[in-house]
C-alpha cells in the first residue's frame, strides 16, 4: 500500500471515466490471467465493455436481462476455476440478486467479484428505480462479503488488478459510477483492501468518507481549515470489513467523527463507523448521507443539493460534531 493524494486545489474531474478505467484494468488482467471472465446482464455496452468483448469473446458472457441467473452462473464459473466479474447496475446486482449473492456466492463459498455501477445519486436521470441508496445495506449483513466503494480511476484500477489474481478468494462487491468522478489519487498509487486511507491529518474532527464523497470531504476539510477547525480525512473505501483500528484511532485522536456517503446512512458507512465506535471508542458522530429516502430523477448537481451530499454539508455537520464534544 503506497498512495499519494493530489493537492486539494487540484481536485477536479478525472480524465478517465470510471467505466473506461474498469475496462482497461480488466483487459490488462485478462491478458495476464486466462481465468479472468466477465459477465454482464445486458448492460455491457452501456458499461463501456465493448472493447473487452472484442478482445476476449469467449470470456465475455452476456447473460441477457437475468441478474439472478448471472450471479449464479458466476458462482458456478468460479467453482469451475474461473475468476468471474459480474456487472449490472448497483440496484440489480444487489437488491434483485440478493439471495443468489447470499447463497450461491457467499454460503456456497464461491469466488466472485460483483460490480454495481451508478451507485446512489450517480444513477441521475435513470431515477428512483435505478438509484441504489441501499446496496451496501442489502449486502452488509451477509457474512463474509467484502464491500468496496471505489473512489477514483486510480484506486479502481489497482483494486481490479488485485482482485484478478489468487490473493483474494471470496465474494467482493464493488460500487462505482460509470462516468467521471473527481480524481483523488496520484497515478501509481496502490491500496490495501480492508485498510482505510488517511488522506489528511487533523486534530479536531475526522471526516470518514467513501466513493464520490471522498473528494467532498477533502474540500470540506479546506472549508473547515479556513474557519480554524482542523479535520482529519479518511477514505474508507472498504466498508466491510471496515478498518476498525483506524476508526478507533481517529475517534481517540479527534474526539468526534463525520461520515459521508452516497448511500442511506441506515446500513451504510455511518452504521459501520457507529457500530465500531460504540464498541471501541464512543464519540459524537454526525452523518452525511441520502437519508432514509428513495432516489429520484435529476442531474447529479441537483441531486447533490437535494440530498445534501456536499462539502458544505460535511463542514456544517463537522461543526456540530465539534460542538457536541462539549
Amino acid at each position: 500500500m503506497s498512495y499519494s493524494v493530489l493537492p486539494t486545489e487540484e481536485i477536479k474531474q478525472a480524465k478517465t471515466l470510471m467505466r473506461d478505467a474498469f475496462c482497461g484494468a480488466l483487459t490488462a488482467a485478462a491478458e495476464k490471467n486466462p481465468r479472468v471472465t466477465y459477465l454482464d446482464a445486458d448492460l455491457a455496452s452501456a458499461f463501456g465493455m465493448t472493447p473487452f468483448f472484442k478482445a476476449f469473446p469467449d470470456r465475455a458472457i452476456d447473460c441477457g436481462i437475468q441478474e439472478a441467473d448471472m450471479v449464479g452462473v458466476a458462482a458456478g464459473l468460479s467453482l469451475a476455476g474461473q475468476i468471474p466479474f459480474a456487472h449490472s447496475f448497483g440496484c440489480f446486482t444487489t437488491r434483485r440478486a440478493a439471495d443468489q449473492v447470499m447463497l450461491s456466492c457467499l454460503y456456497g463459498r464461491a469466488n466472485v467479484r460483483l460490480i454495481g455501477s451508478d451507485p446512489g445519486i450517480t444513477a441521475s436521470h435513470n431515477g428512483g428505480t435505478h438509484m441504489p441508496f441501499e446496496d451496501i445495506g442489502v449486502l452488509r449483513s451477509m457474512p463474509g462479503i467484502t464491500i468496496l466503494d471505489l473512489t477514483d480511476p486510480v484506486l479502481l484500477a489497482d483494486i481490479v488488478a488485485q482482485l484478478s489474481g489468487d490473493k483474494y478468494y471470496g465474494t467482493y462487491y464493488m460500487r462505482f459510477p460509470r462516468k467521471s468522478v473527481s480524481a483523488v489519487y496520484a497515478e501509481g498509487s496502490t491500496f490495501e483492501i480492508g485498510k482505510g486511507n488517511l488522506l489528511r491529518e487533523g486534530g479536531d474532527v475526522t471526516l470518514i468518507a467513501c466513493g464520490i464523497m471522498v473528494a467532498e470531504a477533502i474540500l470540506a476539510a479546506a472549508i473547515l481549515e479556513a474557519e480554524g477547525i482542523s479535520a482529519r480525512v479518511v477514505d474508507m473505501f472498504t466498508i466491510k470489513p471496515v478498518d476498525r483500528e483506524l476508526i478507533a484511532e481517529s475517534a481517540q485522536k479527534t474526539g468526534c467523527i463525520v461520515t459521508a456517503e452516497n448511500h442511506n446512512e441506515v446500513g451504510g458507512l455511518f452504521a459501520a463507523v457507529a457500530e465500531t465506535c460504540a464498541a471501541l471508542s464512543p464519540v459524537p458522530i454526525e452523518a452525511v448521507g441520502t437519508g432514509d429516502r428513495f432516489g429520484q430523477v435529476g442531474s447529479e448537481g441537483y441531486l447533490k443539493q437535494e440530498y445534501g451530499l456536499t462539502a458544505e454539508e460535511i463542514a456544517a455537520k463537522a461543526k456540530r460534531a465539534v460542538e457536541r464534544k462539549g
Partner: protein
Amino acid sequence: MQESAEEKEFRSLAGKIRVGVIEQLRAFGQGHIGGAMSIADTLAVLYGGVMFVDPKNPANPKRDRLVLSKGHAGPALYAALCERGFFPREWLGTLNQGGTHLPSHCDRTKTPGVDVTTGSLGQGASVAAGLALGAKLRGEDYTTYLIVGDGECNEGQVWEAVMFAAHHKLGNLVAFVDWNKQQLDGYTENVMANGSFEEKLRAFGWNAVTVNGHDTAAIFAAITAAKEDTNKPSAIILDTVKGKGAFFAEGVEFNHSMSVSGEQAERAIAEITEAAR
C-alpha cells in the same frame, strides 16, 4: 427379459440409497422423505455407473459434477455418496444434528462429494450452467449433471438458466426434472401447474425426453443418448412417484416432509431390501 448385471447393480444401489434415506430420517425423526425417495433411482444410475467420482480425492478436477438443486433431497445424495465410500456409514445417523456433516440441504463445505451448495430453489440451475460453461472455457471434459424438482420449476431462475444453457450451447450439461407431481402444498397440478416439461424445454432449445424415473435401464439409456449431443443441453424428465418405496409416504398427498417412526422405518427397510433383492 433377463436383467443384466449392470441393471441388477443399479437396482441394488437404488435400494441401498432408499434404505440410507430411511436410516437418516429415522435417526432424526423426520425429514424430506418424498423427493429423496423419488430421485433414488437416478442417483443410483449416476453414482453406480455414469459419473466419474473419486471418493479418495473428492475434489479431483476431472470428476463429473452433480448439482442437486432440489437441495432438500440431500439425504438421498448422502446415501449414494456413503455407498460410494465418501464417508463412514455412522455419519448417516447424524443428519441435521448440530455440527453434522450432513445438513438437511446440500452444503459443499460440509459433505465430501457434494459439489455445490443448494437449498434456495432454482439457484442450482444457474450454478450448474456456470460449471458447464467453465468446463467449456477451460477445455475440461467433465459433464455437469443437474437435478431440479418439478415444484422447483415454479422458480423463474430455473428458466433463466435454461435459456442461458441453450444460448451458450452447453452440450456438457444434462438436467433431470424429478417429475413426481407433488410439492409441499400438494399436487403440482393444483398448486402451480407445470404443463409439459418436454414441450417447454424443447421450445427453449433443449433436447428433452421423458422416461420412467424408476426404470434404471431407461435412465441409463437416456443419459447415454443425452451425452451424444455435445452442442445442446439435454433434459431428462423423470416420471416418478413421490415417496417411492416408503409405504407410509407413497401415495400420500402431503409427503414432502414427514416424521418417521422406528416401526415405519423397520417395515420400509424390510420392504425396500426385499424389492431390491
